[in-house]
């Protein structure tokens, strides 16, 4: 860490006052403008009798000026990701004032704009104290209660310095265009602080649509795009089309990008998509460019390891206050002290299109509704990543369901959540059941809940005619599972195979084993691990219509193999191994 970090010196004596800081519409705002605006914000907030101030702006330039004004006034900015009533109420308990775009709140002053008089902007300003508690960000805690993460100016500066060192030269003085809000840590760092530190201008408006970002890039000699998988997955384009404008860099964060969208981005923008992995608690952790290498590499100075017991990704980072290993909420395979692959979350924090949501918090809020007796929230991945809810209703609400219909009730429950959760994370699918599905141990396996959401059409057509009936889930460990199945006579596979002596084809057995394995072992056997070959497969006994039997599956991740066995007590119908591609050896 340098003695006087660059973020602390942004407003110090300036040799290039005419250099642009930001673009708003077709206007360019200069360093002199910025300094003057920041000083106006300092004057406006100095007298606020509180050390912490809640901040919400839609305009990134105004936000940046307010942030520097607050810092020079000795205040800490509490960044709000949204202005939902529940968020404003929560924040009101921790701050002495709000600045930015708020409705007036009784009891707390709201400053929406500073007085425009320039005040002492000519002289030299001192550097800010690197240890100043610069910002507090709000993030979803795993218990359901939001967590406040404080960051000193030096922490932000260290992170910005890492990115500048790695990508600064490549990005040069490009215009930074973003599709994400600066009110979250990713946008704060990449749309505002990194451009400020690197002397590159940023666009003050957030581009909600691809077309706006492209329109801004026209006529610019070089641009950087700060975006998310949500946008890259839905970027309008012609097959093989190229983006207008010159793109020096495309950055994506908040969630892993699907490989095909990374390929699209590389072809379309003409540069590999640089993905950043990080969180509010840890700051930036690692990066990758999937079209070149799909393993994550840590940012300079960050080491990773894996917890033997939990499989959690551990890290040591100069961005963390502690020198000891920090346990993240993500599972990972770690290949070296700087390279790893992510395998999903360990806790009940879900990422919905890049937005973090605590499933526990959602369940708690739903449980408070008079209609709900018991409830589970889960994440489904279909056309989009979304939350879904399985609930047991109180008797009166079950009657309402019959008389008023499902939509009335789900709309009411959605509204009940909407003051507390942003709309993209609100549940889009609901199942009302008599009882929550439990296994023999009284637990509610995720898989049971997921099956309730299998496509209705597919469920009625497929479930009875293409899949076995699951009678019982015997047991499951990390790498083994055993289920009891019934092979219904209605299965389409018996037709014509063979007339007079119908048997279940071997290829169907292999197909079932693979399908169940992908379901039960989740990301251990991911889609990227394509089926490659069979080994030692034997079909010993024919499986006849109506038969009940057990299917045992054992995953051997270190050998990329899946063992399967269809049996009933001593009778073995079939057994063998399937080998998959590309399961990488964890260290």
């Amino acid at each position: 860490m340098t003695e006087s970090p660059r973020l602390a010196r942004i407003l110090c004596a300036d040799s290039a006052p005419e250099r642009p800081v930001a673009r708003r519409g077709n206007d360019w705002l200069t360093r002199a403008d910025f300094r003057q605006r920041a000083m106006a914000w300092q004057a406006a907030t100095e007298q606020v009798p509180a050390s912490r101030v809640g901040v919400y702006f839609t305009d990134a330039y105004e936000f940046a000026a307010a942030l520097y004004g607050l810092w020079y006034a000795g205040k800490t900015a509490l960044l709000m990701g949204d202005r939902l009533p529940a968020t404003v109420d929560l924040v009101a308990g921790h701050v002495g004032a709000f600045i930015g775009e708020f409705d007036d709140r009784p009891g707390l002053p709201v400053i929406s704009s500073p007085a425009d008089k320039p005040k002492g902007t000519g002289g030299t300003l001192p550097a800010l104290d690197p240890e100043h508690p610069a910002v507090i960000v709000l993030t979803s805690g795993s218990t359901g209660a939001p967590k406040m993460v404080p960051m000193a100016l030096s922490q932000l500066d260290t992170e910005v310095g890492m990115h500048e060192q790695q990508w600064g030269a490549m990005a040069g003085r490009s215009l930074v265009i973003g599709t994400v809000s600066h009110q979250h840590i990713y946008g704060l760092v990449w749309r505002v602080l990194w451009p400020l530190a690197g002397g590159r201008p940023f666009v003050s408006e957030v581009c909600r649509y691809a077309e706006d970002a492209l329109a801004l890039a026209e006529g610019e000699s070089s641009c950087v795009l700060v975006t998310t998988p949500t946008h890259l997955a839905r970027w309008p384009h012609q097959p093989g089309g190229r983006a207008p404008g010159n793109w020096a860099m495309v950055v994506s964060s908040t969630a892993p990008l699907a490989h095909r969208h990374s390929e699209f981005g590389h072809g379309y923008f003409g540069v590999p998509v640089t993905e950043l992995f990080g969180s509010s608690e840890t700051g930036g952790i690692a990066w990758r460019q999937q079209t070149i290498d799909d393993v994550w590499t840590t940012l300079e100075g960050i080491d990773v390891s894996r917890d033997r017991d939990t499989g959690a990704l551990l890290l040591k980072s100069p961005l963390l206050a502690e020198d000891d290993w920090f346990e993240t909420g993500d599972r990972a395979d770690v290949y070296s002290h700087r390279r790893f692959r992510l395998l999903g979350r360990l806790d009940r924090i879900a990422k919905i299109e890049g937005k973090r949501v605590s499933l526990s918090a959602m369940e708690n809020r739903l449980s408070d509704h008079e209609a709900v007796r018991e409830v589970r929230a889960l994440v489904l991945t279909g056309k989009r990543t979304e939350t879904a809810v399985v609930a047991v209703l109180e008797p009166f609400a079950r009657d309402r369901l019959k008389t008023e219909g499902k939509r009335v009730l789900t709309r009411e429950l959605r509204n009940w959540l909407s003051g507390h959760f942003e709309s993209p994370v609100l549940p889009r699918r609901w199942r009302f059941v008599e009882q929550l599905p439990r296994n023999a141990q009284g637990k509610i396996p995720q898989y049971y809940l997921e099956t309730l959401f299998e496509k209705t059409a597919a469920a009625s057509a497929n479930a009875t005619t293409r899949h076995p009936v699951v009678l019982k889930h015997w047991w499951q460990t990390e790498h083994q599972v055993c289920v009891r199945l019934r092979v219904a006579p209605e299965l389409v596979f018996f037709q014509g195979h063979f007339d007079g002596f119908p048997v279940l084809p071997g290829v169907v057995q292999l197909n079932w084993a693979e399908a169940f394995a992908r379901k039960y072992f989740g990301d251990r056997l991911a889609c990227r691990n394509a089926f490659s070959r069979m080994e030692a497969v034997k079909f010993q006994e024919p499986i006849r219509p109506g038969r009940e039997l057990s299917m045992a599956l054992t995953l051997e991740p270190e050998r990329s193999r899946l063992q399967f066995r269809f049996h009933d007590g001593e009778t073995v119908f079939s057994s063998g191994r399937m080998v998959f591609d590309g399961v990488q050896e964890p260290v």
Partner: protein
Amino acid sequence: MNELKTELKQLVIDALDLEDVTVDDIDSSEPLFIDGLGLDSIDALELGLALQKCYGIKLTADSEETRKHFASIDSLAELVASHKNA
């Protein structure tokens, strides 16, 4: 026009993979976003893509303006109809 509106309702249901909603449930004048049908910013992105695919409607600069037509089925129908006539 009514035929087009029904077609657009079905497009919204299919493109956004909506559950528990039929063509009859959508009121042509009701807001699609936030209130009413409760669509969100990601749905707006999906809807833009679907309109491009089905009707060749390309949103260029000032897409914010064009997307005001996303407010309801009525205004969507106007957008698509004017594009067809153009």
